[in-house]
């Protein structure tokens, strides 16, 4: 067993359970009345005990069996984070089926691809919105199958189970089922089959597929990575060896369960360590709900951390001068102490002052962000800018980088407390081997390396070699401290004229550190240096515009303002200062729209798809390379009544070659959008 090396771990509830359903049974037996999860509903945190959780899983598992789901089948779940998502997952696993999580924002080809490839018969969908998508897919399918998607396997969708019935009362489609009806059906089905489910759970093997996670591919057809119970539980053991999690810890689950990061903490760590999960009431109340809970553990992609920083910047800028001064003072002390602490040194002479600074300046900010109790915070999925990293350490949040792919259950390398470097991703977790091959590619091997891509042996063979090494496709190296430094995707690594290898992601992250820049995509200019397509952050830039008494209507209008272009010029110039001359951004333009996952420009986890950008905005990139003054782009605007109008938008290309920063401007601190 892969978990044998975990015996040294301090596990609060020792158990030999090696599958999720058996872990659940163990928790329901040992801690029946403890809270497994709570969801804010109707303004109140409604708890669900381990015993009720297990009972509902039992009913739903019987229900799935009654609907014809068999061992080895795959059930899809399409919805936001709710207890039903996990009940469906555990129920499927209890009868030997697996679950594939689909991002709730998925549409069209992506959705069809996942459902057909995994031969899904039963989908658990959240609400009317998701059900409508599936009904439409089913209706359009005969047409689709003969045309564009004829290469896909058939759609086998038989039943759609929904758990939020609002608005679905009038629907007459006979394949729609209410979640609670399926539970009831299962309950009856189960009464005549005593012991059946226990046998099923006992028959489950640790190497069975537990979860299928979609990989954020560069096309609309993601690969489906099969993760077994062993994979996920080995990862949970290895992670908690470094950063122990105990049953008293709280975790707020708001990132999609389709993402490996959420499966890894909420499900794998959750079930193996008995963590209490909390689900926010609504996406609009997420921040206040998180503050109410005060999670002990948190794992989020850079996007979330960046937006927290933006929020601090906006709110500090709206605060009075006294608050700004006090925070500025406290931040400087926090920053100095953090710098010592990440190297494993004590605060020294600053200890007392830091205590005061923490009380008056730093802790209140942590509290506002819901991070007051957070002992371990992780970022992963994409690189996080070193400056953002530094900000969180300065305010006293123990933020650490996690590196890993879906194919290795999300975690392979992580920072240790007191040994953090902002430009690295840390050292491998227990049970993980690392090696860099001759191409500079990072290879990983551990018990968490996935079973393979679903129905795609050739892709699996490309990803994992015969000795079990996972080829990550990332370029990187190990530094003198043994920390792994990830450069970028191997294919995106560029070499300058003087031969240094660098990553466009590095420059882009530097640009994105500006509170006003939301996304950046850089390209090498034919005449040396870099060019960039930027999108502005409407929240921070909008609030800046208001502060400057600048009126604007839409995003497009805001991005076209000369003042905004000057603001961004200054920000780009600032980020250029730390870069070698050969990779500085010399020309850029502000795009007329934000990148949108529905347009395939960005993945559901908000990673920019360079190839799509490259194709769609080829004309812009060429113009940037040539150094034109302006470039027109034609976009189609669809109105509510169905009419479409082609509109040409004129975008200005801003050249920074001879840029001089306006005189007499001070430096902008990290935590503020102002000087």
């Amino acid at each position, binding site marked *: 067993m892969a978990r044998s090396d975990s015996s040294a771990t301090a596990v609060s509830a020792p158990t030999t359970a090696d599958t999720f359903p058996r872990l659940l049974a163990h928790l329901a037996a040992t801690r029946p009345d403890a809270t497994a999860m709570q969801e804010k509903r109707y*303004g109140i945190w409604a708890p669900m005990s381990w015993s009720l959780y297990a009972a*509902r899983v039992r009913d739903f598992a019987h229900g799935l069996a009654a609907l014809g789901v068999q061992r080895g089948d795959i059930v899809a779940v399409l919805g936001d984070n709710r207890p039903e998502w996990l009940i469906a997952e555990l129920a499927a696993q209890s009868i030997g089926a697996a679950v594939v999580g689909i991002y709730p924002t998925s549409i069209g080809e992506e959705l069809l691809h996942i459902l057909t490839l995994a031969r899904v018969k039963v989908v658990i969908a959240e609400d009317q919105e998701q059900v409508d998508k599936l009904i439409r897919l089913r209706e359009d399918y005969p047409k689709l199958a003969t045309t564009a998607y004829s290469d896909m396997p058939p759609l086998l969708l038989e039943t759609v189970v929904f758990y939020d019935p*609002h608005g679905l*009362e*009038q629907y007459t489609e006979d394949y729609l089922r209410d979640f609670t009806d399926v539970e009831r059906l299962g309950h009856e089905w189960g009464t005549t089959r005593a012991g059946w489910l226990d046998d099923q759970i006992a028959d489950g093997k640790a190497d069975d597929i537990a979860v299928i996670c979609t990989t954020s591919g560069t096309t609309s057809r993601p690969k489906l990575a099969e993760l077994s119970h062993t994979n996920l539980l080995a990862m949970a053991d290895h992670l908690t060896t470094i950063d122990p999690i105990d049953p008293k810890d709280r975790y707020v689950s708001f990132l999609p369960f389709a993402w490996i990061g959420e499966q890894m903490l909420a499900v794998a760590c959750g079930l193996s360590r008995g963590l209490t999960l909390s689900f926010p009431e*609504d996406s609009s109340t997420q921040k206040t709900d998180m503050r109410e809970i005060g999670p002990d553990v948190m794992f989020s992609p850079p996007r979330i951390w960046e937006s927290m920083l933006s929020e601090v910047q906006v709110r500090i800028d709206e605060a009075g001068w006294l608050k700004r001064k006090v925070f500025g003072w406290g931040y400087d002390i926090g920053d100095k102490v953090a710098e010592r602490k990440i190297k494993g040194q004590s605060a020294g002479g600053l200890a007392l002052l830091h205590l005061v600074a923490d009380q008056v300046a730093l802790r209140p900010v942590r509290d506002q962000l819901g991070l007051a109790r957070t002992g371990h915070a992780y970022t992963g999925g994409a690189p996080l800018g070193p400056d953002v990293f530094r900000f969180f350490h300065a305010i006293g949040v123990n933020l650490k980088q996690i590196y890993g792919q879906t194919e290795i259950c999300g975690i392979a390398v992580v920072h240790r407390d007191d040994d953090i470097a902002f430009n690295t991703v840390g050292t491998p977790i227990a049970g993980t081997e690392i090696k860099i091959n001759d191409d500079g590619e990072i290879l990983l091997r551990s018990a968490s390396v996935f079973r393979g891509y679903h129905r795609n042996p050739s892709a699996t063979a490309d990803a994992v070699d015969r000795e079990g090494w996972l080829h990550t496709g990332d370029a990187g190296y190990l530094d003198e401290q043994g920390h792994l430094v990830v450069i970028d995707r191997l294919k995106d690594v560029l070499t300058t004229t003087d031969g240094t290898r660098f990553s466009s992601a590095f420059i882009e992250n530097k640009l994105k550190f500006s509170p006003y820049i939301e996304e950046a995509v850089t390209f090498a200019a034919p005449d040396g240096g870099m060019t960039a397509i930027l999108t502005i952050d409407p929240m921070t830039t909008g609030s800046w515009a208001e502060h400057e008494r600048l009126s604007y209507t839409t995003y497009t209008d805001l991005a076209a303002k000369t003042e905004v272009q000057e603001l961004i010029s200054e920000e780009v110039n600032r980020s250029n200062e730390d870069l070698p001359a050969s990779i500085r951004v010399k020309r850029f333009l502000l795009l007329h729209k934000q990148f949108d996952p529905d347009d395939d420009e960005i993945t559901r986890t908000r990673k920019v798809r360079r190839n799509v950008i490259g194709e769609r905005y080829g004309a812009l990139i060429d113009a940037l390379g040539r150094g034109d003054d302006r470039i027109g782009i034609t976009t189609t605007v669809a109105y*509510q009544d169905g009419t479409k109008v082609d509109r040409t938008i004129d975008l200005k290309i801003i050249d920074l070659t001879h840029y001089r920063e306006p005189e007499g401007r001070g430096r902008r601190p990290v935590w503020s959008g102002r000087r």
Partner: protein
Amino acid sequence: MLSPPVADDREAAVRTRAYQHALNSSTLPAGSPALEIRDIELRFGGVVALQDVSFTVTQGHIHSVIGPNGAGKSSLLNCVSGLYHPQRGSVTLHTGTQGVAHQLTSLPPHKIARLGVARSFQNIELFSGLTVLENLMLGRHTHMKHSIAASLLWFGPARAQEIAHRGLVEEVIDLLSLQAFRHKPVGSLAYGIQKRVELGRALAVQPSLLLLDEPMAGMNSEEKEDMARYVLDVHELAGVTVILIEHDMAVVMDISDRVSVLDFGRLIADGTPDEVKANPAVVEAYLGAEDH
């Protein structure tokens, strides 16, 4: 409806996400007449606001009343809610309880409210210093029955009652997606949100008939779209019969089951949106004369 659920129901209530309270208090079958307006005439001194207006609102419909400014739309709504008493004609409400028909023309507003006729106002009429939740709880006051002393001490039945009513109000909050604003004072909210709270307050009454006076007035197109969706949700999810006064023709034609058109106090057309759109009198009076 607000009696404590039995154990089995409670278990089911934990599992299901379906609403536990019916927001529609009318027990009429859909399709039967809910409100009959017959030959009403309303005068202010020598000014005739409404003359010989007759139409029937059918249970389960969104029934829109449109017309140019000053056509008498709000006056008509005021005749239904009892703020105005027409000099002639009758307004009859059917709520389905024991087949009783209520004559609204002779009743004061608070008695009409007790019959389940709830309304929202063209100009927002909320308590701006109170929170969204408190404003919505106020919508429940016709249903609360306990003494001042019990309320002040907030013990026993008074407490139990308030908790039960809060349950219903929370479902209204959920239906109208007001969760993020629950504890915010109404005065601090954006106009579009205040309008939604106004709709919520009317809905918290558990109406048998909902009167909406220009719920989308002064909104931008995005807010209008949102509001139209909420009106549709209220109608489809809660099954409430709605009388809607609105200026925006596109919205009216999109969401109404039936449309009545007023011009200078007279009813000039009454029918489905398509019929009304094709009616030459409407085109001339409303659509043709003004550039809409």
